[in-house]
């Protein structure tokens, strides 16, 4: 998605817009059957006592990917990462990195580096020595180490702080030291464990773009663990949504958002309205009987549904239109009453209660400044959406 040939990125700035990238070669090695994955999980299970952290997981990750493991705490994402680093061994199954079985290889013998959630900077060493730590262990000569550390300091814009100790710099700078240290050895694979968790929101957003820049410049494969869906969506080339030791869906951020494969994923990523009902398929259109006395919801799908099968209709609030007049050409329209309005500055979210008791969220962009709000509490309104706006889900 954001993977571009070098030079097309302005240093430290937002990458070029999506429309522009489409014209270039799309980075999608997972769609190329000839591409060899860098990391392979083969039926990996990890148990701690009688708790199963990872449950029979098989997954490929390709070179130069920015792969995000996303899920609630306890879903196994951190365990997956720690197995890649070598701090945990799988109970069953195999992990390959660049074709090599990692079973008996200790952390210090892996071409994998990790950026720790707590940063784990050595408090007794200066920024410079922290970054040089891994290089010195390789027994490189002083000149090589010097050049590499300086390069890393420039990359992370830390040159001014080289002599400081970790407790003498800010949280954002510490985060960059941790990144520089883990990149110094030029690993094949960089693991990032909630790398931005300790930063405030504004700094986190800036750092996300910085991370993407650095990933593109160095060409390193990044695997990031996060519980922040916005972060995963921003930085990743692919996102794996996890739950209870399993990967529920792996796809690009856009696919995850627009075509979730389950109610769990739809609900985990972003805001969503879920309406459950019975399917009545008719070609690629499916009518959903969802409430007595209400017209069926018409949706479009490529999966086959049986007549009468239980079905879940998921639609994002921004795809639901809201109006005071009855819309003429909408495939789906329902009347309701405004229950709540959340004004967020750039957008407003309306909670509309239907006569059936369902509450549907509809979102509109506030494109005009301080316009007289035409819809207010308790107003009768129409909500509507097209027949391709929502997703039909089996589970």
């Amino acid at each position, binding site marked *: 998605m954001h993977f571009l040939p070098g030079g097309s990125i302005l240093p430290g700035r937002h990458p070029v817009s999506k429309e522009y990238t489409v014209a270039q070669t799309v980075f999608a090695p997972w769609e190329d059957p000839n591409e060899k994955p860098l990391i392979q999980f083969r039926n990996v299970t990890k148990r701690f006592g009688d708790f199963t952290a990872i449950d029979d997981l098989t997954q490929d990750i390709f070179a130069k990917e920015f792969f995000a493991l996303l899920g609630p705490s306890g879903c196994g994402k951190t365990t997956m990462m720690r197995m890649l680093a070598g701090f945990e061994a799988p109970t069953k199954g195999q992990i390959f990195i660049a074709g090599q079985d990692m079973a008996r290889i200790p952390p210090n013998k892996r071409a994998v580096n990790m950026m720790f959630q707590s940063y784990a900077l050595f408090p007794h060493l200066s920024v410079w020595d922290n970054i040089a730590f*891994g290089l010195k262990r*390789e027994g490189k000569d002083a000149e090589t180490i010097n050049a590499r550390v300086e390069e890393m300091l420039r990359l992370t814009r830390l040159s001014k702080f080289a002599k400081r100790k970790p407790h003498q710099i800010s949280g954002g700078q510490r985060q960059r030291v941790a990144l520089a240290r883990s990149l110094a050895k030029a690993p094949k694979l960089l693991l990032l464990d909630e790398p931005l968790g300790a930063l405030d929101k504004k700094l986190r957003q800036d750092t996300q773009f910085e991370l993407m820049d650095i990933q593109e410049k160095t060409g390193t494969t990044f695997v990031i663990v996060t519980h922040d869906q916005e972060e995963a969506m921003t930085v990743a080339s692919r996102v794996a949504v996890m739950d209870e030791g399993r990967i529920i869906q792996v796809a690009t951020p856009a696919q995850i958002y627009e075509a979730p494969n389950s109610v769990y994923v739809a609900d985990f990523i972003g805001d969503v309205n879920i309406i459950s009902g019975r399917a009545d398929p008719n070609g690629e259109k499916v009518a959903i009987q969802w409430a007595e006395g209400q017209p069926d919801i018409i949706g479009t799908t490529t999966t086959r549904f049986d007549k009468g099968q239980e079905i879940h209709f998921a639609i994002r609030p921004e795809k639901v239109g809201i109006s005071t007049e009855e819309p003429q050409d909408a495939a789906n329209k329902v009347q309701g009453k405004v229950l709540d309005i959340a004004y967020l500055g750039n957008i407003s979210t309306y909670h509309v209660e239907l006569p059936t008791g369902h509450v549907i969220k509809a979102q509109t962009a506030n494109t005009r400044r301080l316009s007289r709000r035409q819809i207010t509490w308790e107003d009768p309104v129409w909500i509507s959406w097209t027949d391709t706006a929502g997703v039909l889900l089996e589970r």
Partner: protein
Amino acid sequence: MRRAFLIAVPYLWLVALFLIPFVIVLKIALSDVALARPPYMPQLDLSAGWDGITAFFAALDFENFWFLTTDDLYWKAYLSSLQIALISTVMTLLVGYPIAYGMARAAPEWRPTLLMLVILPFWTSFLIRVYAWMGILSNEGLLNQFLMWTGIMSAPLTILNTNTAVYIGIVYTYLPFMILPIYSALERMDDSLLEAAEDLGCSRTSAFWLVTIPLSKNGIIAGCFLVFIPVIGEFVIPSLLGGSGTLMIGKVLWEEFFSNRDWPVASAVAVILLLILVIPIILFQRNEQKQREAEG
């Protein structure tokens, strides 16, 4: 006002219990021995007015300090004390560090119990514990009985009344002072630092030397001073477990004071000992200060 009062309390304490006694000891050290009660001259006679005070100060001299340099017993005793203190500090560190490390690595629910076990010996009198060691180390003691029973030894091993017994006694007695500061430094250490070291290419052993040891450095320094400083002046352990060959300044001090009844020379020995101790105490304070700043 309140602030001044709060600061005054520790200062008054120090003046009453440290500075005034020290001035008295210093005064005795500058006096001459006399067959009198108290056994030294001169005495300050305030009833004689100004003449009494000038006569008193005129009689004070550094004769006793000079005397200490004429007899090589004294500087040998100082050196021997420093040597014993140094060796036993290193031995206490070698025994204490693994214990502290084991405690810090133990499961969190075990740590309070282990800590308790380290502190537990303080619940009995120090003297009783040293006497117990006499029972263990003597020729007919438990250790020799055990060694002869197993057949390792045919004749009893002479340990009691040697320097070996003194080292055993010191290491045993001062071990908690070494363990506690090291344990507190190790316990605070973030485990992810060791993982980071391994991740960056360290073996377990090199991670220990490059991360664990430097991060427990302040604990090690504090522990060493807490052992070294009191051991220099140690008297009970060398006099109960040591033999005639064990030369320590604490013992010399005791003999000057009680056997020779030469209070002025004994006081001079004490003043010099204090001056020797001031150096490590200042270094210790510096270390503590630096640690506080680093944590600041």
